[in-house]
């Protein structure tokens, strides 16, 4: 199971990558395996405020819709336009080309509430 070392994780199977003041959000390899074929992504709107641990996006597989909880609070600055035509990127490349949205965080200390790669690996094993 792929759990990249440079990311932080939410218990609810989202990951974040921090690059200066931009936080990128996606779902983990474990999540995409559980969801199976992803056919639709409803990202947040650019400019929307999101709160940590509340629903920011929805991902739909053939069988069910799943809420994606924002790991951190902030303002959405960008969404991955590729997902509209290629939602399967979440399955094939969840940590890179399958990123869902980016946000400007309002409180960087929220990172401390997230799991390290080791802690997340332990959770999913």
């Amino acid at each position: 199971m792929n759990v990249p070392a440079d990311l932080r994780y939410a218990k609810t199977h989202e990951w974040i990558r921090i690059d200066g003041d931009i936080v990128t959000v996606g779902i983990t390899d474990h999540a995409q395996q559980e969801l199976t074929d992803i056919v639709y992504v409803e990202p947040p709107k650019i400019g929307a405020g999101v709160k940590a641990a509340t629903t920011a996006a929805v991902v739909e597989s053939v069988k069910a819709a799943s809420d994606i909880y924002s790991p951190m609070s902030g303002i959405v600055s960008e969404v991955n336009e590729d997902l509209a035509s290629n939602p399967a990127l979440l399955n094939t490349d969840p940590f890179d080309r399958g990123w869902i949205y980016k946000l400007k965080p309002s409180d960087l200390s929220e990172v401390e509430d997230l799991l390290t790669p080791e802690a997340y690996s332990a959770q999913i094993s």
Partner: protein
Amino acid sequence: MSETVLLKHSPLEAAHLASGARLVEFGGWFMPVQYSGIMDEHRAVRSAAGMFDISHMGEVTVCGAGALAWLESLLTNRVGKLSLGRGQYTLMLDETGGVIDDLIIYRTGETEYFLVINAACREVDLDWMRSKLPNDDSVTLTDLGNEYAAIALQGPDSERILRDLFPICEIPRRNGIATLSSELHSGGLPHFVARTGYTGEDGFELFVPVEIGEVLWQRLLKAGVKPAGLGARDTLRLEMGYPLNGSDLSRSRTPLEAALGKFVSLDDPEKSDFSGRQALESQRAKGLPSLLTPLKLTVQGPPLRAHYQVLSEGLPVGETCSGALSPSLGEGIAMAYLPLELTAPGTSLEIEVRGRRYPASVSTLPFYRKPPL
């Protein structure tokens, strides 16, 4: 005690686990929802061949001098039209005209019939049938649900695969049933092959005694048939507009409302009275309160599912009872019971998904048509 211990398990479960299946609860059974993935399995059935474990379905034989007359009084279309080795889709209604179950009935003998009923209502169906049996012994009903394993082999390659595996077997025509002649031996029950299915492709449903179900599954697997689960079964049948009992069919709607009037012999002078007949006649005379209608999203949007509200000019007019993102079409498809005035193909409607309304229109069935060769 864990939930799964209370569920019934298929005789083929070991094979499913070995193939990496994900199993879920369905109609009181623990069944595979997918193996390699719903899209992959769906495409395999449309382009080559896939197989579904349908051992959870029920099998019932009805025989005796009074069998035909009794079945005519139980089912909606003319059972008497079935010659030996033929089958047909039919429905069993309660006295209000509501659907207890939809099923396939085959004539397997002079006065012998083989019925295949849905897994989720096996007990309900049997209780109803037993309650309707005559007091004499002109009709014998036998529940063979736990004696049979069953596999649905579906896809354009089905016939070739069956002929290769079972060269001495008589291959039935569409809707026919024959003995599955093979070197697979087991005592007692007849082995059947029926040319029917729930996918819209050519295919066969194979019924063998439970103890050789796994052998048959392994043979098909070795012949290159892809295992397919309930997820693909649902997307395939919905693309054809085939109703699902429990979602599109229920006790609160008649087959006329479900647009299944061609399976109800109200105008056939040789059809006797049957359970629900009076209710249907009176409904037909008064006008149907609703009609099961195929809908399509007219924009790119989320997959459609059951229980999404349908709106006309901003007002709610119904809710979806089935829905999917059609793997073959790449479009959202659904079925909903709607007032008759909104059911003409092309009628503009909206479907609400998570608070957002998406434009949709009334479509025609089947949603998916095989492209000409």
